[in-house]
């Protein structure tokens, strides 16, 4: 079974977690 398809149900949560990290990066370096 492909790992990618196993991750699909968790994808929105992974994407949201990445969005939080990128937002923190932006606040730290661009504000």
């Amino acid at each position, binding site marked *: 079974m492909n790992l990618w398809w*196993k991750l699909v*149900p968790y994808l929105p*949560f992974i*994407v*949201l977690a990445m969005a939080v990290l*990128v937002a923190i990066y*932006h606040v730290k370096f*661009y504000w």
Partner: protein
Amino acid sequence: MENAAATTLPMARNSLAREFWLQQAPLIGGALLLGVLAAYLQHGFLPGADRAFPVAEVRVPVWHLIWMGVWTGYTMAVVGEAAGIFALPYSMSILQFVNASVTPSTQLLTFLNPIGALLGFRRSGQWNLKFAGAVCLGGAVGGLIGPFLRSGLLAAADVFHFAVGVALAIAGIHLCYAAFHSTARRPPQADAYKKKVSIGAQIQGMRIRVSFGEESWDLNMLALFGVGAGVGMFASALGVGGGFLLVPIFASLYRLPMYVLVAATIPYVIVLSAVGLFTYNVVLPAFGSAPIAPEWAWGFFAAAGGIFGSWAASKTQMYVPEHFLKLMLGGVTGIVGTLYVVDFFYPLPFRL
């Protein structure tokens, strides 16, 4: 859930790649190209991490704008909403795009983002211009009025934040509500999307009878027009597509299921955003108000990501635990909206 995903794997891989490269990649490439062209035509250079976007007055790497489109387009499309209602507060509070141009810039994202979905729904038969007509006409009227509200009543930053807070709170409540009370849905079907469906519409006087299979709904076209105009006015004044209000109204008041209401809401968002953009750039100055120019490149770059994000959502939506996600997104949206509203009355000790 994983099993269902795994069994579709052999067929899905090829057809997904084919669909992406033939249908989505040209749209995404076009939006990126337009972003670069718009930057050079509007400013003579490509803004980004080193040089601030002159209209937005902030430094943001181009990849971050594309990423904003991807994550807002993806997460919101998974729960049946559009990117604008997330991209707008993110642009304001994280990217610090706080002047009035944030509104038409986000409106450019909401204009381009649903085009891929529109083509998809048209192919699958979830399309009827008679049904969409009245609400789209209302949206066009709302799109002509809303920008005047933005340049007048909502011109002050704190009042605008308050209005965005109210919109976010509504979207948050709707998402949380939908997490517990699912709207009318068809049971999942093995042959879904394999054959073309059809949405019918018959106009009799001021009423329209919308039908799908054996189901039908009797709607008043004046009411559809009024709802479209009211939602359009508020949405275009903020710079969002209006789906956050229109979807709950259609789903709750008219009991229209998701697979039918998209035939009206997707064209609505596109029409409203197009008219809103036109009004911000052309109609406002024609009536003596200063135009509110969008940061065109900002909108195009975000839209490139948004097109990919919403397409990815359409391909993975049925494998995702939608209820938990709706609750989580609704909670976050509602809390952010409440903070915006509270900040208007009692300034908070941190920047929003």
